């Protein structure tokens, strides 16, 4: 749009549209100064519309490095200095747009001829796509789990009591967590968080356990199929059992999914893997168990309709051989940090050697923009293969 030569006589326009065999005077702007409030931000062409249409924000606490968030992505913001002199030339009418300045009277503006330099820029900001910093989300939501006590006392809680607890609204979270809106929403979902009375909460596993068992209990009593649960019925029965409506929905949401074909009728199918993982975690919460006794109790807890297999527990439990016995214990990928360096450090503290099939469930969720999982392995592990046909083994680098 700037390519067509326009006979204008001032500012950036005249400089950029300078006609052959002509010249323009370059001078200091009437408002020349350090202008620390003017920042240059270099960014990809594809991000330009996001910024121009006001879809980006900067997020971070004062002790954190700021990140820039679009609707779906997070970018770190870095200052890059330059040793050259970068003379910044605004358009001709720039000074007229700053109404509050004393220096900005008509007289000075009239004096302006040619193109004026408003500041010498010491460098510019650059953007690098990064993974969202979601570890904080879990830690702040875990400060205050939603438990059965709270569900029962709910009515008695006065607002004073409520304000004493540290609870977070969506706006609090976007102010505290360095992630884009989409990433934050995905993060809340992955952590099974639920919005209760305007606050995002993680529900205590023991309370979830209570609701889930009651749901199964009711399904037996009422002869419901776990593959086609009618939402209205389930929710109203659980409500009459004393569970808040919101939590009844949440239970369906966490341990099941809507049946696509019957979307309008609100039909849900329980997810065998999520249910099985839940019960396994419950059994192992007290500590490790011998494989046989674990399997026996686990099978007993799971509704008959559901197919169980030990593979469902990948990324949730580890097994180890002690003598002739095999033991099972909880080691959940969701409890591990999301930055690769910290993740691998904990993994190798847990086990000095990992086979690929054991390691994979614990690293497949690692998300580092621009770095493939192969590159991650190269960076943080040493791969050895005792024999050509043997399984590769990964150790710390």
């Amino acid at each position, binding site marked *: 749009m700037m390519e067509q030569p326009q006979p204008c006589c001032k500012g950036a326009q005249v400089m950029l549209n300078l006609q052959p065999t002509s010249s323009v005077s370059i001078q200091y702007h009437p408002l020349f100064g350090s202008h620390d409030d003017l920042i240059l931000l270099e960014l990809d062409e594809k991000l330009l519309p996001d910024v121009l249409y006001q879809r980006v924000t900067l997020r971070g606490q004062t002790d954190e490095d700021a990140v820039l968030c679009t609707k779906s992505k997070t970018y770190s913001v870095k200052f890059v200095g330059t040793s050259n002199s970068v003379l910044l030339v605004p358009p001709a009418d720039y000074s007229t747009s700053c109404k509050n300045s004393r220096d900005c009277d008509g007289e000075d503006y009239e004096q302006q001829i040619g193109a004026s330099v408003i500041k010498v820029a010491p460098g510019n900001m650059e953007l690098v796509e990064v993974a969202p910093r979601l570890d904080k989300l879990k830690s702040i939501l875990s400060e205050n789990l939603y438990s059965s006590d709270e569900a029962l006392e709910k009515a008695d809680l006065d607002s004073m009591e409520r304000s004493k607890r540290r609870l977070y609204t969506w706006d609090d979270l*976007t102010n505290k967590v360095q992630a884009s809106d989409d990433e934050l929403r995905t993060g809340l979902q992955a952590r099974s968080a639920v919005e209760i009375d305007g606050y995002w909460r993680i529900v205590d596993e023991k309370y979830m356990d209570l609701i889930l068992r009651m749901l199964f209990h009711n399904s037996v009593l009422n002869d419901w199929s776990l593959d086609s649960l009618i939402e209205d019925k389930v929710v109203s029965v659980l409500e009459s059992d004393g569970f808040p409506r919101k939590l009844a929905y949440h239970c369906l949401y966490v341990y099941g999914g809507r049946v696509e074909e019957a979307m309008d009728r609100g039909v849900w199918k329980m997810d065998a893997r999520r249910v099985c993982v839940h019960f396994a975690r419950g059994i192992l919460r007290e500590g490790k168990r011998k494989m046989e006794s674990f399997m026996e109790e686990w099978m007993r807890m799971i509704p008959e309709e559901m197919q169980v297999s030990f593979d469902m527990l990948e990324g949730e439990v580890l097994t180890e051989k002690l003598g002739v016995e095999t033991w099972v214990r909880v080691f959940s990928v969701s409890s591990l940090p999301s930055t690769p360096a910290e993740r691998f450090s904990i993994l190798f503290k847990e086990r000095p050697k990992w086979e690929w099939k054991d390691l994979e469930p614990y690293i497949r969720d690692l998300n580092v923009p621009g770095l493939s999982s192969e590159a991650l392995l190269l960076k943080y592990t040493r791969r050895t293969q005792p024999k050509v046909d043997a399984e590769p083994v990964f150790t710390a680098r």
Partner: protein
Amino acid sequence: MQIQVKCSCGAEKCPEWAIIELQGVVEVQPSFRDSLQNLQIGLLCRPSFQENYTFTVGYHELTGSKVALKKPMLVLKKIKRMNVDQSDEATSSSKVELDVVGVIRQKILFKTRPKALISGPQPAVKEKANAAGAAAQKQSV
């Protein structure tokens, strides 16, 4: 904390700014240092049809060309808004906003050292390939 990035110029109408980039620093004669406003730095010339330019600063001449930036650059202005709502306690919190005031797509780059012009009037401003001055700033990539 969250800082909203606004664009009061209205997306497509975002005005284009320009950059003149040169090595070293532009040094102003001591007697003019307190009154830089409107002071002439030099003369930018386009001698031919090509996108080549000369920039004459004092008795130095720089030769360079117009280049398109690999990535666009936005000019953001930091705006502090005092919270109007004073009913709150002593927390006179001010809110920071960033406003897009321009976009830069091209610059005129002078990447060589200046050539001395033999004669000329005593200038108010001189360009100086000042190694010491440049080294004091952070080196770019």
